[in-house]
């Protein structure tokens, strides 16, 4: 099971390398309300050679967005694919438009999705060092020494990142290689998702003649793009208010340490409006985006909104509602989402973190007055986050709704080291491996 995961993830990493070599890779954000596709070209000064740390301009100077397209998502609910043909068409539309804009063919795609019931696990492992200096093999061993929780059948590991290394009593090490000690310990954050969701996604992408070069959770990548550097360092939670699912990710010391998802989002608000005002979903969506809000003022009682309709009944088609009524419909649902997020944050122990910064991002964060409402529910340190600016991104794709797309660009350029990026421990090698023979020699002489 583990080797299987290793292999598939390593295959994806190799695919990503091949894509970088070719210089063109596509980013696909499969959301509930929209499918966004960005085409990146890697030809900046940092194209070749992995340098220490993160390069200039947060590593963004190495790539440029040359194609961008968004299309209405279909067949996706709660951030998971549930009608594959429809989703495939949506992906095709987005990819084709982005390709057309970029005027290149893309073969490799890095995808993210928000749903599939992400679950977070904290793993710890500890080994005695063989010869006091930490080597790559020791890191591989300590990673494999982590006690694997029983995450259940039908689930797949999406992220597994070593967050912290400790040697003897010194903790908080980023890179223990070459250091001297007796015991090496690691803390790892592992995130699992429903494997059927991944399989569906794989199938859809394969049907579009594309190769998957990476997979990420959108909660993670929107955290990468919307949290500023000190927030990632000191600890912050990023809440991605998406269309069908709300993702939350907690960052600390530049690593994601917790991630979760709430299966509620902006589309629920839309359906509430649709039901409450007796209008079609498209009209409800339009009313929400134009007039929506969560804090009613006296002015809002007087601002009347034409709802419209096309039944032919004059009375019915000339209905109006006040903005206050609309806010009265939206607010409980938004509150519910935020309450749910609060509950997840509490369950994760976010209130015990030194920094309580919360960043709201995603399309849902554009509701006017949301920051006020959120600070009442989530705590005082709430801000609205917009994704980083990346080179060549069209103005239309710089909003909060594209946080995970932009994050995925950064993820594509500089992926965090995951479990499968480290060496495989010698014990796990096949029995007739040369390395195993070398190890046997070294152990016995």
């Amino acid at each position, binding site marked *: 099971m583990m080797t299987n995961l290793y292999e598939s993830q390593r295959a994806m990493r190799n695919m990503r390398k091949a894509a970088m070599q070719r210089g063109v890779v596509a980013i696909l954000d499969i959301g509930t309300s929209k499918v966004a596709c960005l085409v990146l070209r890697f030809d900046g000064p940092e194209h070749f050679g992995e340098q220490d740390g993160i390069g200039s301009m947060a590593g963004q100077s190495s790539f440029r967005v040359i194609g961008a397209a968004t*299309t209405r998502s279909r067949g996706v609910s709660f951030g998971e694919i549930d009608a594959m043909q429809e989703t495939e*068409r*949506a992906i*095709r*539309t987005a*990819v*084709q438009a982005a*390709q*057309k804009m970029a*005027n*290149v*063919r893309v073969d490799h795609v890095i995808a993210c999705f928000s749903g599939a019931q992400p679950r977070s696990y904290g793993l710890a492992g500890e080994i005695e060092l063989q010869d006091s200096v930490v080597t790559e093999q020791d890191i591989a061993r300590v990673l494999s020494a982590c006690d694997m929780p029983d995450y259940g059948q039908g689930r797949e590991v999406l992220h597994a990142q070593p967050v912290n290394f400790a040697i003897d009593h010194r903790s908080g090490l980023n890179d223990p290689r070459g250091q001297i000690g007796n015991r090496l310990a690691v803390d790892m954050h592992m995130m699992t998702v429903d494997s059927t969701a991944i399989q569906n996604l794989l199938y859809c992408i394969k049907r*579009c*003649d594309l190769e998957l070069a990476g997979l990420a959770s959108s909660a993670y990548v929107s955290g990468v793009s919307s949290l500023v550097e000190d927030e990632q360092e000191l600890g912050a939670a990023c809440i991605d208010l998406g269309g069908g699912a709300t993702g939350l990710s907690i960052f600390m010391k530049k690593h994601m340490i917790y991630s979760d998802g709430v299966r509620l989002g902006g589309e629920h608000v839309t359906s509430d409006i649709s039901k409450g005002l007796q209008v079609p979903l498209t009209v409800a969506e339009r009313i929400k985006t134009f007039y929506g809000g969560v804090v009613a003022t006296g002015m809002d009682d007087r601002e009347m909104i034409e709802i419209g309709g096309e039944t032919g009944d004059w009375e019915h088609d000339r209905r109006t509602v006040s903005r206050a009524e609309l806010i009265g419909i939206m607010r409980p649902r938004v509150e519910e989402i935020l309450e749910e997020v609060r509950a997840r944050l509490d369950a994760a122990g976010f209130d015990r973190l030194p920094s309580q910064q919360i960043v709201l991002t995603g399309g849902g964060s554009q509701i006017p007055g949301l920051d006020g409402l959120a600070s009442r529910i989530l705590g005082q340190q709430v801000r609205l986050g917009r994704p980083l600016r990346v080179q060549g991104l069209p103005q239309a794709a710089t909003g909060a709704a594209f946080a995970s797309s932009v994050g995925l660009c950064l993820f594509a350029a500089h992926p965090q080291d995951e479990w499968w990026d480290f060496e495989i421990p010698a014990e796990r090698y096949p029995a007739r491996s040369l390395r195993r023979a070398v190890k046997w020699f070294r152990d016995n002489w």
Partner: protein
Amino acid sequence: MRQMKASHRENTSPRDPAPSRLSYRYQRLLLTPLFRTFLRVGLPMGAAFTLGMAVLGNADNRDAIALRITEIRNSIEERPEFMVKLMAIDGASPEVNGDIREIVPIDFPLSSFDLDLEEMRLTIAELDAVASAEVRIRAGGVLQIDVIERIPSVVWRGPQGVELLDNTGHRVGALIARAERPDLPLLTGEGAELAVPEALDLFAAAEPLASRVRGLVRMGERRWDVALDRNQRILLPEENPVEAIERVIALDHVQDLMARDLVVIDMRNQNRPTVRLAETAVTELRRIRGQVLGDTTQ
């Protein structure tokens, strides 16, 4: 009615923006760099090649094309603007003029495309009497030949008879007799034609003796003899012959050398000019000397 309405609504429903699988694949194919290069370069070239092969593969087509090309070519060449109607020769004496017309036989009118002017120029320049020639087609369809003739400066009596040479030693023409050109000096002897400039210098230097000089004789292909009337000769050295002749003229001025009964004035040794007397002169000289010495034997 309900059925109709439903179907009507279906027709007016917003079009599916998604590309079909086929068009998606087609577009991706068109974006493939190799395929695009093939479309842009390979396909037109291949089509042109195939078409060309199909047309040229047929012998009739090839002939028709060749025929058509010659037809077009002829129709252009035979336009009146390109026709040459007559030949004009400037700078040539009547004989040379006749020679040129003889060696460049052209049937006028002729298209200027058929004239090889360079070849013609070389042919004319090969004539002995022609120093250089210039051939061009003048406006109005005239073949203009400008000739600069060689000017004969010496008469050379060679193995093939009497010939005229110009000042570089190039043959100009033949003479029937020396007497035809008494104004020109005469050269003879083996290799005389190769040293014409030197001979002209000598003639210039021997100007005071001009009335007596009959010609120059090349001796052993290296030096000159000046032949004078009364069978007198001046033997000139290989080097500085002009100086030697000037010394002879100086001697002539002072001592009236040439009027005496000499056969040969030998200037070959610069330091010791020698004279050979005629036989009668020698006996005369001896007789005079005998008288002076009081020799009474005779």
